[in-house]
């Protein structure tokens, strides 16, 4: 059947900066969605050629295989320090880190706090799935009370293992931060909001407004021991109560940025 093409327009396509390979991520994991959203924003803002990614250690260590831009790969937790080195040398380029919660909220807590405190003009994408995915699902600082993991087989006991660390809330208190928000990737509506936040965060950096971070609640069906559909419900029931979605820091200059949703 011939379709008259005059009325057709492309409304959705693979961003060309996203590589055409099969990812190593598990079925139902939302890393792929996060990658895609970042890739869309890089294409939309036309900054593919002047953006540098800093990958971290964890499941997303190979994020550089999926986003076709210049990349470095940091030691565990050190991505904000490495990104600082890159950005200080190349202040006109866009520099982002892509870090999981084991990397950022545990071993890399020093680096993230101080990069935020300095108001380093970089963007951090923080994937929070409440466990160490790459090493097989151990307890992370972000694991919720009672959460069973391979290193908390009886559930996270706050008496001995303490309480979850809410990174967005923590960083929002630092004067150096400009844009700190938490979004979730568990359904389409939230994914659209996440995309908008990712774009805003990059625009914050493009306007030299300082440190921006988007925390993305993510699913990890394999290590949570549920199927991909159940994982979305698990996230809503278990993560959102501890990690409420919301804007934790938006300085007035950032609030003026208008991003079409």
């Amino acid at each position, binding site marked *: 059947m011939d379709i008259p093409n005059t009325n057709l327009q492309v409304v959705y396509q693979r961003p060309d900066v996203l590589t055409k390979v099969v990812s190593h991520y598990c079925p139902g994991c939302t890393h792929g969605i996060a990658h895609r959203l970042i890739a869309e924003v890089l294409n939309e803002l036309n900054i593919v050629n002047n953006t540098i990614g800093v990958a971290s250690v964890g499941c997303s260590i190979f994020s550089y295989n999926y986003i076709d831009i210049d990349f470095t790969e940091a*030691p565990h937790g050190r991505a904000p*320090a490495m990104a600082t*080195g890159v950005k200080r040398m190349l202040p006109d380029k866009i520099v982002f880190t892509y870090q999981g919660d084991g990397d950022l909220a545990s071993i890399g807590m020093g*680096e993230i706090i*101080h990069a935020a405190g300095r108001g380093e003009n970089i963007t951090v994408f923080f994937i929070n799935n409440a466990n160490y995915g790459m090493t097989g699902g151990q307890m992370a600082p972000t694991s919720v009370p009672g959460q069973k993991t391979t290193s908390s087989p009886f559930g996270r006991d706050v008496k001995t293992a303490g309480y979850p660390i809410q990174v967005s809330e923590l960083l929002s208190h630092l004067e150096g931060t400009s844009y700190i928000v938490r979004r979730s990737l568990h359904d389409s509506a939230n994914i659209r909001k996440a995309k908008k936040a990712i774009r805003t965060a990059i625009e914050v950096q493009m306007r030299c407004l300082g440190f921006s971070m988007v925390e993305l609640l993510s699913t990890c069906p394999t290590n949570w021991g549920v199927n991909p559909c159940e994982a979305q419900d698990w996230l809503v029931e278990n993560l959102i109560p501890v990690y409420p979605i919301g804007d934790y820091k938006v300085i007035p200059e950032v609030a003026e940025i208008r991003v079409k949703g």
Partner: protein
Amino acid sequence: MTRELLKGNLAIAETAIRVGLDAYFGYPITPQTELLEWMSRRMVEEERVFLQAESELAAINMVYGAACTGARVMTSSSGPGISLMMEGISYIAATEVPFVLVDVMRAGPGLGNIDAAQSDYNQIIHGGGHGDYHQIVLAPSTIQESIDYTVLAFDLAEKYRMVTVVLIDGIIGQMMEPGILPEMKPARTKQPDWIPPKWAVRGKEGHDRHLLTSIHMSPTLEEGLNLRLLKQWREIRLKETRYKEYYLDDAEIVVVGFGTAGRVALSAVRTARSYGIKVGLFRPISLRPFPEEALEKLVDQTKAFLVVEMNTGQMYKDIKKIVSNQSRVEFYGRVGGVIPFPDEILSEIRRISSMSYQSENIDPIDAWIQRLEDIRKTEAVGR
């Protein structure tokens, strides 16, 4: 080109600035802190990048990031801080990006103290970081050498894309001596002849993307990397050895020492010569690659080697391997931040020149411990 009275730490810092340092990242630790302080003022004056990091861990990773852009980068620290940097040094070595590390050694282990020592020889020479990697190590013993070998360190680091260390101790870092600094140049990446290295991560404008990583999941790929690093190192071993020889033509006793220990030993050697003792000094400057061949050449003429260090015999073990079975190797060291006096080394030279080795079966380190314990009894407390 004027001779100026310069403190070691400042001489190294200003030299780095003058040869075009783009960025310095560091963290305060005695006895290297003046280097960081000098950078905090001068790098800002020259509109270069200076950043005081929150830890040595962060500092080395800032260096890592900046080095990945192809810039000329440096950091400095001392023992406890160097230990923290070892993680990043291993990653940087694996990624093959250049940078210069200045290690101003103090006494250890642990916090030890802030006095000069050479106790981190093993850590720096034999690699304190994980994995199979190599780094160039230059050990100056004067302020002028500190200047000259800082210049060379950047050239070697960038030529071989290799971590290069300027290894001094608290004495050289803190003492003042005349020296001639190099001419002032703009930051390396702002110099007219500079083009970004073909591997640099600066955004993929005009070329396929660049990736700098230290992970190679395939064992055969990692094996390939290990072999490539080794082959390059073996080339460096042939080309980049540096040392100084003093009074060796007819020497029967050869003192071996680097840095401050080498300098103190030279005073002792000169005095011993005035007494007619046939003694000379071999002072390695490149501790890695070690000038093995030059030392081996001395074996035939030498009755005994005397290794002098400010540690418990770390380089001594390497010297033993190089000249083993053929020569007697004696050891004298002061440790814990104690600096040997020339008199102590002189009495060692006299002891060796008058001793008969056939009757001497005691291990040189055991013998040294015994002699040192006797010396400590005669010294005032808190020397």
